């Protein structure tokens, strides 16, 4: 085989590999949600974040609008501080927007849900959401349920 043919085939091989990589990156992985366009950062303070993780989605009305980028614990206020990046196109959330930690499905993973408020001013880069609702911890709910059961029995 001539060296020209060999070089063409090697070129095709490398091109196929690059095409495969882009196919995996674009249509299989979450690359399209990385830094696609501008974004701004919002923080929220929660008493309990449950199973929320870095890179968990942030959703409003069920639509993913951003991702959790950082989770820290503030030992002065005893609260978890969750940083999120929200895509720039969703920049019209009122300042009294409420953030709650929800679970998709019964056993699904947890995400931050935004419930828009009614103020005229919008959230900006670096703002902190104060209206938050913590994750439901199953053990606590079961504990409360058992507790209320035993209360019922006493009153009967």
């Amino acid at each position, binding site marked *: 085989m001539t060296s020209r043919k060999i070089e063409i085939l*090697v070129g095709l091989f490398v091109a196929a*590999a690059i095409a495969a990589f882009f196919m995996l990156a674009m249509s299989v992985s979450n690359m399209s949600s990385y830094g696609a366009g501008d974004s701004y950062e919002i923080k929220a303070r929660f008493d309990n974040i449950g199973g929320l993780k870095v890179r968990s989605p942030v959703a409003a009305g069920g639509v993913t609008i951003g991702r959790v980028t950082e989770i820290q614990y503030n030992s002065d206020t005893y609260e978890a501080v969750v940083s999120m990046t929200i895509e720039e196109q969703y920049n019209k959330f009122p300042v009294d927007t409420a953030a709650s930690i929800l679970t998709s499905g019964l056993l699904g993973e947890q995400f931050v849900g935004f419930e828009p408020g009614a103020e005229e001013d919008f959230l900006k880069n670096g703002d902190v959401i104060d209206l938050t609702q913590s994750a439901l911890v199953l053990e606590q709910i079961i504990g409360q349920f058992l507790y209320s059961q035993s209360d019922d029995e006493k009153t009967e």
Partner: protein
Amino acid sequence: MFGGLIDRIQYIGAETLRSFQRLGRASVFLLEVIASCADLVLKPTLLIKQLYSVGVQTLIIIVVAGLFVGMVMALQSYYALVDFGAEDSVGVMVALSLLRELGPVVTALLFAGRAGSALTAEIGLMKATEQLSGMEMMAVNPMRRIVAPRFMAGVISMPLLATIFSAVGVLGAYVVVVQLLGLDSGAFWSQPQNKVDLYLDIYNGLIKSVAFGFVASWIAVFEGYDCIPTSEGLGQATTRTVVHSSLAILFMDFILTALMFSK
């Protein structure tokens, strides 16, 4: 009676020393190969020829294997998940297992069988027919001329092959689940897009495949260069290449997985 026992102990000692000597020779050999790789920049044609015989000629078995591995995995996970109504997760299950484990590992095993054994046989035969010493006589360094291009071609080809394997596997899964079993194609693609991470999954898979390519090519060229120059020795060297590379790949996969995905 004691004589027999001492003979045994001597045998064990000799074998241990021999294997450590081999390991030492292999390490020195690796350093020499890496040092000679710099010359390839000046002579890229040597590398391209080897990329053809190591990479392009392995492509067919990789594509076919990837297609069927993806299809079988999709089929099996579909039947397992459909009982729980979770068949939407087939896409993410196949994509994650291909990118993290099966892509690099199966490609490396096939690579060791198809390309590694050929490298060993080629270099070993060159040694047996005294082509290597002939080159040295002509003041051509066989390390630079023969070994380094083959080694580099292996290291470069492996990640390319593994990427193609994973992509073809996902396409195979798509064909089975969406076209044959009638799952919604939106669900098939959207779940991986949520769960598969570019850095954690795809890049780590690539790092794995580079590491496997490095080890498999190292073992292949060393076994060829170090073989006993007879037909029997050549056969043993080729067998050792496949066995040792496969074991090394599986062992390294465990270590790398533990390092990468442990948190």
